[in-house]
Protein backbone atom coordinates (compact mmCIF):
# COMPACT_ATOMS: atom_id res chain seq x y z
CA UNK A 1 0.00 0.00 0.00
CA UNK A 2 2.78 2.38 0.91
CA UNK A 3 4.33 1.97 -2.48
CA UNK A 4 1.07 2.89 -4.11
CA UNK A 5 0.75 6.00 -2.01
CA UNK A 6 4.24 7.11 -2.77
CA UNK A 7 3.76 6.64 -6.49
CA UNK A 8 0.60 8.70 -6.31
CA UNK A 9 2.53 11.24 -4.29
CA UNK A 10 5.22 11.44 -6.89
CA UNK A 11 2.58 11.84 -9.56
CA UNK A 12 1.34 14.76 -7.54
CA UNK A 13 4.74 16.29 -7.41
CA UNK A 14 5.15 15.64 -11.06
CA UNK A 15 4.24 19.06 -12.31
CA UNK A 16 6.88 20.59 -10.12
CA UNK A 17 9.44 17.94 -10.96
CA UNK A 18 8.56 18.29 -14.61
CA UNK A 19 9.21 21.97 -14.41
CA UNK A 20 12.50 21.08 -12.81
CA UNK A 21 13.48 19.22 -15.87
CA UNK A 22 12.04 21.72 -18.23
CA UNK A 23 14.57 24.08 -16.81
CA UNK A 24 17.35 21.78 -17.80
CA UNK A 25 15.60 20.45 -20.78
CA UNK A 26 17.71 20.27 -23.84
CA UNK A 27 14.81 20.09 -26.20
CA UNK A 28 14.74 21.53 -29.64
CA UNK A 29 12.61 24.48 -28.87
CA UNK A 30 12.28 26.01 -32.25
CA UNK A 31 14.34 29.12 -31.97
CA UNK A 32 12.10 31.62 -30.31
CA UNK A 33 12.69 34.93 -32.03
CA UNK A 34 14.77 36.65 -29.43
CA UNK A 35 13.27 39.75 -27.91
CA UNK A 36 15.28 42.64 -29.20
CA UNK A 37 17.54 43.83 -26.44
CA UNK A 38 15.65 46.87 -25.37
CA UNK A 39 16.29 49.47 -28.04
CA UNK A 40 16.29 52.61 -25.97
CA UNK A 41 19.48 53.46 -24.16
CA UNK A 42 18.14 53.69 -20.67
CA UNK A 43 19.43 56.26 -18.28
CA UNK A 44 19.88 54.21 -15.14
CA UNK A 45 18.82 56.98 -12.79
CA UNK A 46 16.34 54.61 -11.17
CA UNK A 47 19.17 52.57 -9.66
CA UNK A 48 20.62 54.03 -6.49
CA UNK A 49 24.35 53.88 -5.79
CA UNK A 50 24.19 51.07 -3.20
CA UNK A 51 22.52 48.80 -5.73
CA UNK A 52 24.94 49.55 -8.54
CA UNK A 53 27.89 48.65 -6.34
CA UNK A 54 26.24 46.12 -4.04
CA UNK A 55 24.65 44.05 -6.81
CA UNK A 56 27.84 43.14 -8.69
CA UNK A 57 29.66 42.70 -5.37
CA UNK A 58 27.06 40.19 -4.19
CA UNK A 59 27.21 38.30 -7.49
CA UNK A 60 31.00 38.18 -7.29
CA UNK A 61 30.88 36.81 -3.74
CA UNK A 62 28.38 34.12 -4.72
CA UNK A 63 30.44 33.13 -7.75
CA UNK A 64 33.49 32.86 -5.49
CA UNK A 65 31.52 30.48 -3.26
CA UNK A 66 30.53 28.36 -6.26
CA UNK A 67 34.07 28.37 -7.65
CA UNK A 68 35.94 27.90 -4.36
CA UNK A 69 35.99 24.08 -4.33
CA UNK A 70 37.10 23.99 -7.98
CA UNK A 71 40.02 26.33 -7.34
CA UNK A 72 41.06 24.55 -4.17
CA UNK A 73 40.89 21.08 -5.71
CA UNK A 74 43.01 22.32 -8.63
CA UNK A 75 45.66 23.68 -6.27
CA UNK A 76 45.63 20.40 -4.36
CA UNK A 77 46.03 18.35 -7.54
CA UNK A 78 49.36 20.01 -8.39
CA UNK A 79 50.68 19.70 -4.84
CA UNK A 80 53.85 17.61 -4.81
CA UNK A 81 53.33 16.42 -1.22
CA UNK A 82 51.08 13.46 -0.48
CA UNK A 83 49.54 15.36 2.41
CA UNK A 84 47.07 18.06 1.58
CA UNK A 85 48.54 21.35 2.74
CA UNK A 86 47.95 24.94 1.71
CA UNK A 87 49.49 26.61 -0.08
CA UNK A 88 51.44 23.77 -1.76
CA UNK A 89 55.18 24.17 -1.23
CA UNK A 90 56.21 22.42 -4.41
CA UNK A 91 54.38 21.52 -7.56
CA UNK A 92 54.19 18.40 -9.72
CA UNK A 93 52.18 16.45 -12.25
CA UNK A 94 52.68 13.14 -10.52
CA UNK A 95 49.12 12.74 -9.19
CA UNK A 96 47.82 13.11 -12.71
CA UNK A 97 50.17 10.34 -13.81
CA UNK A 98 48.93 8.15 -10.99
CA UNK A 99 45.27 8.94 -11.75
CA UNK A 100 45.72 7.84 -15.35
CA UNK A 101 47.62 4.67 -14.51
CA UNK A 102 45.70 3.50 -11.42
CA UNK A 103 44.05 0.22 -12.45
CA UNK A 104 40.72 0.76 -10.64
CA UNK A 105 40.23 4.11 -12.35
CA UNK A 106 40.99 2.64 -15.76
CA UNK A 107 38.56 -0.24 -15.17
CA UNK A 108 36.02 2.17 -13.68
CA UNK A 109 36.23 4.43 -16.70
CA UNK A 110 35.78 1.42 -18.95
CA UNK A 111 32.75 0.21 -16.97
CA UNK A 112 31.26 3.70 -16.88
CA UNK A 113 31.57 4.03 -20.65
CA UNK A 114 29.85 0.68 -21.22
CA UNK A 115 27.04 1.48 -18.81
CA UNK A 116 26.69 5.03 -20.07
CA UNK A 117 26.47 4.07 -23.76
CA UNK A 118 23.99 1.25 -23.20
CA UNK A 119 21.84 3.09 -20.66
CA UNK A 120 21.62 6.37 -22.57
CA UNK A 121 20.86 4.71 -25.92
CA UNK A 122 18.29 2.32 -24.43
CA UNK A 123 16.65 5.15 -22.51
CA UNK A 124 16.54 7.20 -25.70
CA UNK A 125 14.84 4.46 -27.72
CA UNK A 126 12.41 3.52 -24.93
CA UNK A 127 11.65 7.13 -24.03
CA UNK A 128 11.09 8.21 -27.63
CA UNK A 129 8.79 5.28 -28.27
CA UNK A 130 6.69 6.03 -25.23
CA UNK A 131 6.61 9.78 -25.90
CA UNK A 132 5.33 9.18 -29.44
CA UNK A 133 2.70 6.74 -28.14
CA UNK A 134 1.63 9.14 -25.39
CA UNK A 135 1.30 12.16 -27.67
CA UNK A 136 -0.24 10.48 -30.73
CA UNK A 137 -2.18 7.47 -29.48
CA UNK A 138 -4.62 6.49 -26.78
CA UNK A 139 -4.15 3.46 -24.57
CA UNK A 140 -5.37 2.39 -21.14
CA UNK A 141 -3.20 3.20 -18.16
CA UNK A 142 -1.38 6.01 -20.00
CA UNK A 143 -1.23 8.36 -17.02
CA UNK A 144 -0.28 5.63 -14.58
CA UNK A 145 2.54 4.47 -16.85
CA UNK A 146 3.90 8.01 -17.13
CA UNK A 147 3.61 8.58 -13.40
CA UNK A 148 5.58 5.41 -12.64
CA UNK A 149 8.29 6.22 -15.16
CA UNK A 150 8.71 9.79 -13.88
CA UNK A 151 8.72 8.71 -10.23
CA UNK A 152 12.52 8.09 -10.04
CA UNK A 153 12.85 11.88 -10.07
CA UNK A 154 11.63 12.00 -6.48
CA UNK A 155 12.33 8.48 -5.25
CA UNK A 156 15.74 8.49 -3.56
CA UNK A 157 18.40 6.72 -5.61
CA UNK A 158 19.36 4.59 -2.65
CA UNK A 159 15.84 3.16 -2.54
CA UNK A 160 15.97 2.22 -6.22
CA UNK A 161 19.43 0.70 -5.73
CA UNK A 162 18.40 -1.20 -2.63
CA UNK A 163 15.28 -2.56 -4.31
CA UNK A 164 17.20 -3.87 -7.32
CA UNK A 165 19.93 -5.30 -5.08
CA UNK A 166 17.46 -7.22 -2.89
CA UNK A 167 15.59 -8.35 -5.99
CA UNK A 168 18.58 -9.99 -7.64
CA UNK A 169 19.79 -11.38 -4.32
CA UNK A 170 16.42 -12.98 -3.72
CA UNK A 171 16.38 -14.72 -7.08
CA UNK A 172 20.08 -15.50 -7.03
CA UNK A 173 20.70 -13.57 -10.23
CA UNK A 174 24.29 -12.59 -10.86
CA UNK A 175 25.02 -8.89 -10.48
CA UNK A 176 26.39 -8.11 -13.92
CA UNK A 177 26.40 -5.19 -16.32
CA UNK A 178 22.76 -5.75 -17.26
CA UNK A 179 21.65 -4.92 -13.72
CA UNK A 180 23.69 -1.70 -13.63
CA UNK A 181 22.40 -0.73 -17.07
CA UNK A 182 18.79 -1.44 -16.07
CA UNK A 183 19.26 0.67 -12.96
CA UNK A 184 20.66 3.59 -14.98
CA UNK A 185 17.90 3.33 -17.59
CA UNK A 186 15.34 3.65 -14.78
CA UNK A 187 17.11 6.72 -13.39
CA UNK A 188 17.76 8.63 -16.64
CA UNK A 189 14.55 7.78 -18.50
CA UNK A 190 12.56 10.68 -16.95
CA UNK A 191 15.05 13.18 -18.39
CA UNK A 192 14.79 11.67 -21.88
CA UNK A 193 10.99 11.59 -21.63
CA UNK A 194 10.74 15.27 -20.75
CA UNK A 195 13.09 16.22 -23.58
CA UNK A 196 11.11 14.30 -26.16
CA UNK A 197 7.77 15.57 -24.85
CA UNK A 198 8.88 19.17 -25.28
CA UNK A 199 10.14 18.48 -28.81
CA UNK A 200 6.87 16.74 -29.67
CA UNK A 201 4.93 19.84 -28.62
CA UNK A 202 6.81 21.81 -31.26
CA UNK A 203 6.26 19.20 -33.95
CA UNK A 204 3.59 19.99 -36.53
CA UNK A 205 1.24 17.02 -36.49
CA UNK A 206 0.00 17.90 -39.97
CA UNK A 207 3.31 16.76 -41.47
CA UNK A 208 2.69 13.27 -40.11
CA UNK A 209 -0.94 13.38 -41.21
CA UNK A 210 -0.05 14.35 -44.76
CA UNK A 211 2.51 11.55 -45.00
CA UNK A 212 -0.13 9.11 -43.77
CA UNK A 213 -2.73 10.46 -46.20
CA UNK A 214 -0.26 9.95 -49.04
CA UNK A 215 -0.19 6.29 -48.14
CA UNK A 216 2.80 5.92 -45.78
CA UNK A 217 2.41 3.17 -43.20
CA UNK A 218 2.53 4.18 -39.50
CA UNK A 219 6.02 2.70 -39.20
CA UNK A 220 7.20 4.62 -42.24
CA UNK A 221 5.70 7.85 -40.90
CA UNK A 222 7.52 7.29 -37.63
CA UNK A 223 10.93 6.74 -39.21
CA UNK A 224 10.77 9.20 -42.11
CA UNK A 225 8.86 12.09 -40.53
CA UNK A 226 8.58 11.98 -36.74
CA UNK A 227 12.05 10.80 -35.73
CA UNK A 228 14.04 13.02 -38.14
CA UNK A 229 12.08 16.10 -37.04
CA UNK A 230 12.65 15.23 -33.41
CA UNK A 231 16.39 14.66 -33.91
CA UNK A 232 17.74 17.79 -32.16
CA UNK A 233 15.56 17.18 -29.10
CA UNK A 234 16.53 13.53 -29.11
CA UNK A 235 20.20 14.45 -29.18
CA UNK A 236 19.70 16.81 -26.25
CA UNK A 237 17.87 14.14 -24.27
CA UNK A 238 20.53 11.56 -25.07
CA UNK A 239 23.36 13.87 -24.04
CA UNK A 240 21.70 14.68 -20.75
CA UNK A 241 21.03 10.99 -20.06
CA UNK A 242 24.63 10.13 -20.90
CA UNK A 243 26.09 12.72 -18.53
CA UNK A 244 23.69 11.76 -15.73
CA UNK A 245 24.56 8.11 -16.17
CA UNK A 246 28.30 8.76 -16.25
CA UNK A 247 28.27 10.61 -12.94
CA UNK A 248 25.56 8.58 -11.13
CA UNK A 249 26.89 7.29 -7.85
CA UNK A 250 24.43 6.36 -5.10
CA UNK A 251 22.36 3.70 -6.87
CA UNK A 252 25.48 2.38 -8.62
CA UNK A 253 27.10 1.79 -5.25
CA UNK A 254 24.32 -0.67 -4.43
CA UNK A 255 24.13 -2.54 -7.72
CA UNK A 256 27.77 -2.77 -8.85
CA UNK A 257 30.34 -5.37 -7.89
CA UNK A 258 34.12 -5.25 -7.98
CA UNK A 259 34.08 -6.23 -11.67
CA UNK A 260 31.35 -3.76 -12.73
CA UNK A 261 32.22 -0.80 -10.55
CA UNK A 262 31.77 2.50 -12.36
CA UNK A 263 34.20 5.41 -12.15
CA UNK A 264 32.32 7.32 -9.41
CA UNK A 265 32.21 4.15 -7.28
CA UNK A 266 35.93 3.56 -7.87
CA UNK A 267 36.59 7.17 -6.84
CA UNK A 268 34.55 6.74 -3.67
CA UNK A 269 36.47 3.59 -2.76
CA UNK A 270 39.75 5.41 -3.38
CA UNK A 271 38.91 8.19 -0.91
CA UNK A 272 38.16 5.62 1.74
CA UNK A 273 41.59 4.01 1.34
CA UNK A 274 43.99 6.78 0.39
CA UNK A 275 44.39 10.39 1.39
CA UNK A 276 46.76 11.49 -1.39
CA UNK A 277 45.74 14.04 -4.05
CA UNK A 278 45.26 11.49 -6.88
CA UNK A 279 41.53 12.00 -6.66
CA UNK A 280 42.07 15.75 -6.81
CA UNK A 281 43.94 15.27 -10.08
CA UNK A 282 41.16 13.10 -11.47
CA UNK A 283 38.59 15.67 -10.32
CA UNK A 284 40.48 18.39 -12.16
CA UNK A 285 40.41 16.35 -15.37
CA UNK A 286 36.69 15.73 -14.81
CA UNK A 287 35.91 19.39 -14.07
CA UNK A 288 37.84 20.87 -16.99
CA UNK A 289 36.57 18.31 -19.51
CA UNK A 290 32.99 19.06 -18.44
CA UNK A 291 33.49 22.83 -18.48
CA UNK A 292 35.10 22.63 -21.94
CA UNK A 293 32.13 20.60 -23.23
CA UNK A 294 29.71 23.15 -21.82
CA UNK A 295 31.61 26.15 -23.19
CA UNK A 296 31.64 24.40 -26.56
CA UNK A 297 27.89 23.66 -26.32
CA UNK A 298 27.23 27.25 -25.27
CA UNK A 299 29.21 28.65 -28.21
CA UNK A 300 27.79 26.45 -30.93
CA UNK A 301 24.34 25.48 -29.69
CA UNK A 302 23.49 28.39 -27.39
CA UNK A 303 22.95 26.87 -23.95
CA UNK A 304 20.68 29.73 -22.96
CA UNK A 305 18.20 28.77 -25.64
CA UNK A 306 18.52 25.05 -25.00
CA UNK A 307 17.98 25.55 -21.27
CA UNK A 308 15.13 27.99 -21.87
CA UNK A 309 16.59 30.82 -19.81
CA UNK A 310 16.94 33.56 -22.43
CA UNK A 311 15.26 36.78 -21.41
CA UNK A 312 11.92 36.73 -23.17
CA UNK A 313 11.11 40.39 -22.67
Amino acid sequence: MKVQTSVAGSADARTAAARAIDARDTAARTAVPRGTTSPKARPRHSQPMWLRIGGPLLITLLLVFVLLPVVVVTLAAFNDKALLTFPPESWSWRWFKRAFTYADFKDGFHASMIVMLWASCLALVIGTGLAVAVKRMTFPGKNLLQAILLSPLVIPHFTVGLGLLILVAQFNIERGYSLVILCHVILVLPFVLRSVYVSMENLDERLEQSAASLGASPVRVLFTITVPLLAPGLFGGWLFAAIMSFSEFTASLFVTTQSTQTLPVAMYNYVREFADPTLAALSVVYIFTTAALLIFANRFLGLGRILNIEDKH
Partner: protein
Amino acid sequence: MDARSKLKGWLISPASFIALCICVALATVLQYSVRAFIPGSLDVGGLTLANFTGLTKPIYLEAFVNTLRLSVETTIFSILVAYPLAYALVRVRNRFFKSFILIVSITPLFLGEIVRTYSWIIVLGNNGFINTVLRKLGIIDQPLALMFTHLGVLVALVHVTIPVVVLMLATAISHIDRDYEKAAESLGAGPVRTFLTVTLPLSMPGILASVTTSFAWTFSAFATPQMIGGGRVPTVSTLVYQLGFASMNFPLAASLSIVGLALTAVALMLLGQVTRRMKAFGGH
Protein backbone atom coordinates in the same frame (compact mmCIF):
# COMPACT_ATOMS: atom_id res chain seq x y z
CA MET B 1 -5.44 -0.01 -38.27
CA ASP B 2 -3.81 -3.30 -37.47
CA ALA B 3 -0.38 -1.97 -38.38
CA ARG B 4 -1.05 0.95 -36.08
CA SER B 5 -1.95 -1.10 -33.05
CA LYS B 6 1.02 -3.36 -33.69
CA LEU B 7 3.26 -0.29 -33.76
CA LYS B 8 1.61 0.90 -30.58
CA GLY B 9 2.55 -2.35 -28.91
CA TRP B 10 6.16 -1.98 -30.01
CA LEU B 11 6.30 1.59 -28.75
CA ILE B 12 4.75 0.91 -25.35
CA SER B 13 6.04 -2.47 -24.27
CA PRO B 14 9.70 -1.55 -23.54
CA ALA B 15 8.54 1.38 -21.40
CA SER B 16 6.03 -0.88 -19.66
CA PHE B 17 8.83 -3.31 -18.89
CA ILE B 18 10.87 -0.54 -17.22
CA ALA B 19 7.79 0.59 -15.28
CA LEU B 20 7.28 -3.00 -14.17
CA CYS B 21 10.89 -3.17 -12.97
CA ILE B 22 10.39 0.01 -10.93
CA CYS B 23 7.23 -1.41 -9.34
CA VAL B 24 8.81 -4.77 -8.62
CA ALA B 25 11.90 -3.13 -7.10
CA LEU B 26 9.74 -0.97 -4.82
CA ALA B 27 7.49 -3.90 -3.97
CA THR B 28 10.60 -5.89 -3.01
CA VAL B 29 11.70 -3.14 -0.65
CA LEU B 30 8.19 -3.06 0.82
CA GLN B 31 8.11 -6.83 1.17
CA TYR B 32 11.50 -6.96 2.89
CA SER B 33 10.47 -4.22 5.31
CA VAL B 34 7.94 -6.55 6.93
CA ARG B 35 10.20 -9.62 7.06
CA ALA B 36 12.16 -10.81 10.08
CA PHE B 37 15.92 -10.40 9.99
CA ILE B 38 17.99 -13.57 10.47
CA PRO B 39 21.44 -12.46 11.63
CA GLY B 40 24.24 -13.83 9.52
CA SER B 41 21.94 -14.82 6.70
CA LEU B 42 20.67 -13.09 3.60
CA ASP B 43 17.44 -15.08 3.78
CA VAL B 44 14.58 -13.55 5.67
CA GLY B 45 12.09 -14.95 8.12
CA GLY B 46 8.33 -14.58 8.45
CA LEU B 47 6.14 -11.52 8.50
CA THR B 48 6.75 -9.04 11.30
CA LEU B 49 6.41 -5.38 12.16
CA ALA B 50 9.51 -5.50 14.36
CA ASN B 51 11.56 -3.55 11.79
CA PHE B 52 9.26 -0.57 12.03
CA THR B 53 9.15 -0.61 15.82
CA GLY B 54 12.95 -0.94 15.72
CA LEU B 55 13.06 2.40 13.92
CA THR B 56 11.95 4.22 17.07
CA LYS B 57 15.49 3.86 18.48
CA PRO B 58 17.17 7.25 19.05
CA ILE B 59 19.75 6.75 16.27
CA TYR B 60 17.04 6.38 13.63
CA LEU B 61 14.95 9.21 14.98
CA GLU B 62 18.09 11.35 14.90
CA ALA B 63 18.61 10.37 11.26
CA PHE B 64 15.05 11.36 10.35
CA VAL B 65 15.39 14.69 12.15
CA ASN B 66 18.81 15.32 10.55
CA THR B 67 17.57 14.49 7.07
CA LEU B 68 14.48 16.67 7.33
CA ARG B 69 16.45 19.52 8.88
CA LEU B 70 19.15 19.33 6.21
CA SER B 71 16.52 19.20 3.45
CA VAL B 72 14.71 22.27 4.75
CA GLU B 73 17.89 24.27 5.44
CA THR B 74 19.46 23.34 2.12
CA THR B 75 16.30 24.38 0.30
CA ILE B 76 16.22 27.78 1.99
CA PHE B 77 19.91 28.59 1.61
CA SER B 78 20.23 27.35 -1.95
CA ILE B 79 17.33 29.54 -3.04
CA LEU B 80 18.84 32.55 -1.24
CA VAL B 81 22.18 32.01 -3.00
CA ALA B 82 20.73 30.97 -6.36
CA TYR B 83 18.22 33.80 -6.74
CA PRO B 84 20.74 36.63 -7.23
CA LEU B 85 22.78 34.41 -9.59
CA ALA B 86 19.71 33.50 -11.64
CA TYR B 87 18.63 37.13 -11.74
CA ALA B 88 22.05 38.24 -12.95
CA LEU B 89 22.18 35.38 -15.44
CA VAL B 90 18.96 36.54 -17.10
CA ARG B 91 19.35 40.30 -16.79
CA VAL B 92 23.07 40.99 -17.29
CA ARG B 93 23.58 42.49 -20.74
CA ASN B 94 27.27 41.85 -21.27
CA ARG B 95 27.47 38.59 -23.24
CA PHE B 96 30.78 37.58 -21.73
CA PHE B 97 29.60 37.95 -18.14
CA LYS B 98 26.37 36.18 -19.02
CA SER B 99 28.24 33.18 -20.40
CA PHE B 100 30.67 33.26 -17.49
CA ILE B 101 27.89 33.20 -14.87
CA LEU B 102 26.13 30.44 -16.81
CA ILE B 103 29.18 28.18 -17.10
CA VAL B 104 30.31 28.74 -13.52
CA SER B 105 26.89 28.09 -12.04
CA ILE B 106 25.89 25.04 -14.06
CA THR B 107 29.15 23.11 -14.55
CA PRO B 108 28.85 21.60 -11.04
CA LEU B 109 25.52 20.06 -12.08
CA PHE B 110 27.32 17.70 -14.41
CA LEU B 111 30.14 16.68 -12.08
CA GLY B 112 28.32 14.20 -9.93
CA GLU B 113 28.30 13.94 -6.16
CA ILE B 114 31.76 12.44 -5.70
CA VAL B 115 33.88 15.12 -7.37
CA ARG B 116 31.94 17.91 -5.69
CA THR B 117 31.98 16.33 -2.25
CA TYR B 118 35.66 15.46 -2.47
CA SER B 119 36.47 19.06 -3.38
CA TRP B 120 34.61 20.23 -0.29
CA ILE B 121 36.59 17.83 1.89
CA ILE B 122 39.75 19.64 0.78
CA VAL B 123 38.13 22.99 1.52
CA LEU B 124 36.72 22.07 4.94
CA GLY B 125 39.34 19.69 6.38
CA ASN B 126 41.45 20.46 9.45
CA ASN B 127 44.42 21.16 7.18
CA GLY B 128 42.08 22.27 4.47
CA PHE B 129 41.79 25.57 2.71
CA ILE B 130 39.56 27.49 5.12
CA ASN B 131 41.41 26.47 8.26
CA THR B 132 44.81 27.17 6.72
CA VAL B 133 43.80 30.60 5.52
CA LEU B 134 42.25 31.53 8.87
CA ARG B 135 45.33 30.27 10.72
CA LYS B 136 47.76 32.12 8.46
CA LEU B 137 45.73 35.29 9.00
CA GLY B 138 46.01 34.72 12.74
CA ILE B 139 42.26 34.64 13.24
CA ILE B 140 42.25 31.18 14.84
CA ASP B 141 44.77 28.99 16.69
CA GLN B 142 42.83 25.75 16.70
CA PRO B 143 41.33 24.48 13.46
CA LEU B 144 37.59 25.03 13.20
CA ALA B 145 35.59 21.83 13.22
CA LEU B 146 33.97 21.86 9.79
CA MET B 147 34.41 18.28 8.67
CA PHE B 148 32.12 15.76 10.33
CA THR B 149 29.68 18.49 11.37
CA HIS B 150 26.16 19.45 10.43
CA LEU B 151 27.43 22.81 9.18
CA GLY B 152 29.99 21.22 6.85
CA VAL B 153 27.41 18.84 5.38
CA LEU B 154 24.96 21.72 4.94
CA VAL B 155 27.46 23.95 3.11
CA ALA B 156 28.35 21.15 0.69
CA LEU B 157 24.70 20.22 0.13
CA VAL B 158 23.81 23.84 -0.64
CA HIS B 159 26.65 23.92 -3.14
CA VAL B 160 25.41 20.70 -4.73
CA THR B 161 21.87 22.05 -5.05
CA ILE B 162 22.67 25.54 -6.37
CA PRO B 163 23.06 24.72 -10.11
CA VAL B 164 19.65 23.14 -10.59
CA VAL B 165 17.97 25.87 -8.54
CA VAL B 166 19.74 28.58 -10.58
CA LEU B 167 18.42 27.01 -13.78
CA MET B 168 14.86 26.71 -12.49
CA LEU B 169 14.78 30.26 -11.14
CA ALA B 170 16.39 31.62 -14.32
CA THR B 171 13.66 29.96 -16.39
CA ALA B 172 11.00 31.65 -14.25
CA ILE B 173 12.71 35.06 -14.24
CA SER B 174 13.23 34.97 -18.01
CA HIS B 175 9.47 34.64 -18.47
CA ILE B 176 8.64 37.75 -16.46
CA ASP B 177 7.33 40.57 -18.62
CA ARG B 178 9.53 43.53 -17.82
CA ASP B 179 6.77 45.99 -18.59
CA TYR B 180 5.29 45.20 -15.17
CA GLU B 181 8.51 46.26 -13.50
CA LYS B 182 8.76 49.38 -15.64
CA ALA B 183 5.16 50.23 -14.80
CA ALA B 184 5.88 49.93 -11.08
CA GLU B 185 8.96 52.11 -11.42
CA SER B 186 7.19 54.75 -13.45
CA LEU B 187 4.54 54.90 -10.75
CA GLY B 188 7.24 55.77 -8.27
CA ALA B 189 8.19 52.47 -6.66
CA GLY B 190 11.89 52.18 -5.74
CA PRO B 191 13.99 49.19 -6.81
CA VAL B 192 13.39 47.34 -3.54
CA ARG B 193 9.65 47.81 -3.65
CA THR B 194 9.49 46.89 -7.33
CA PHE B 195 11.43 43.72 -6.62
CA LEU B 196 9.35 42.72 -3.60
CA THR B 197 5.94 43.49 -5.05
CA VAL B 198 6.44 42.65 -8.74
CA THR B 199 9.51 40.56 -9.61
CA LEU B 200 9.49 38.24 -6.61
CA PRO B 201 5.77 37.31 -6.76
CA LEU B 202 6.06 36.73 -10.52
CA SER B 203 8.98 34.35 -10.04
CA MET B 204 6.98 32.30 -7.51
CA PRO B 205 6.42 29.35 -9.88
CA GLY B 206 10.19 28.93 -10.21
CA ILE B 207 10.67 29.23 -6.46
CA LEU B 208 8.08 26.55 -5.70
CA ALA B 209 9.56 24.22 -8.31
CA SER B 210 13.00 24.80 -6.77
CA VAL B 211 11.68 24.01 -3.30
CA THR B 212 10.30 20.66 -4.46
CA THR B 213 13.38 19.64 -6.37
CA SER B 214 15.96 20.70 -3.84
CA PHE B 215 13.97 19.02 -1.06
CA ALA B 216 13.79 15.71 -2.94
CA TRP B 217 17.43 15.89 -4.03
CA THR B 218 18.73 16.64 -0.57
CA PHE B 219 16.60 13.91 0.93
CA SER B 220 18.22 11.37 -1.35
CA ALA B 221 21.77 12.77 -1.17
CA PHE B 222 24.16 10.10 0.00
CA ALA B 223 27.80 10.84 -0.88
CA THR B 224 27.81 14.26 0.79
CA PRO B 225 26.48 13.28 4.23
CA GLN B 226 28.47 10.05 4.08
CA MET B 227 31.85 11.56 3.19
CA ILE B 228 31.64 14.93 4.94
CA GLY B 229 29.50 13.76 7.85
CA GLY B 230 31.76 10.72 8.27
CA GLY B 231 29.14 8.86 10.32
CA ARG B 232 28.70 11.72 12.75
CA VAL B 233 25.81 13.26 10.84
CA PRO B 234 23.62 10.20 10.30
CA THR B 235 20.93 10.60 7.66
CA VAL B 236 18.35 8.19 6.25
CA SER B 237 20.54 7.50 3.21
CA THR B 238 23.75 6.80 5.14
CA LEU B 239 21.97 4.49 7.59
CA VAL B 240 20.28 2.55 4.79
CA TYR B 241 23.71 1.97 3.26
CA GLN B 242 25.27 1.07 6.57
CA LEU B 243 22.47 -1.36 7.49
CA GLY B 244 22.64 -2.96 4.07
CA PHE B 245 26.39 -3.30 3.63
CA ALA B 246 27.86 -3.33 7.13
CA SER B 247 25.20 -5.22 9.07
CA MET B 248 23.64 -7.02 6.09
CA ASN B 249 20.33 -6.26 7.78
CA PHE B 250 18.35 -5.76 4.60
CA PRO B 251 14.90 -5.93 6.27
CA LEU B 252 15.72 -2.99 8.55
CA ALA B 253 17.35 -1.08 5.66
CA ALA B 254 14.18 -1.70 3.66
CA SER B 255 11.86 -0.45 6.40
CA LEU B 256 14.01 2.66 6.83
CA SER B 257 13.75 3.26 3.07
CA ILE B 258 9.98 2.84 3.17
CA VAL B 259 9.56 5.34 5.98
CA GLY B 260 11.87 7.73 4.11
CA LEU B 261 9.81 7.29 0.97
CA ALA B 262 6.59 7.93 2.89
CA LEU B 263 8.09 11.08 4.42
CA THR B 264 9.15 12.34 0.99
CA ALA B 265 5.69 11.61 -0.40
CA VAL B 266 3.99 13.49 2.43
CA ALA B 267 6.36 16.46 2.13
CA LEU B 268 5.92 16.65 -1.63
CA MET B 269 2.15 16.36 -1.35
CA LEU B 270 2.09 19.23 1.15
CA LEU B 271 4.24 21.27 -1.24
CA GLY B 272 1.85 20.35 -4.06
CA GLN B 273 -1.03 21.68 -1.96
CA VAL B 274 0.81 24.94 -1.35
CA THR B 275 1.56 25.24 -5.06
CA ARG B 276 -2.10 24.75 -5.96
CA ARG B 277 -3.18 27.32 -3.39
CA MET B 278 -0.69 29.84 -4.73
CA LYS B 279 -1.87 29.18 -8.27
CA ALA B 280 -5.52 29.61 -7.32
CA PHE B 281 -4.56 32.78 -5.46
CA GLY B 282 -2.16 34.37 -7.87
CA GLY B 283 -3.56 32.98 -11.08
CA HIS B 284 -0.10 32.68 -12.51
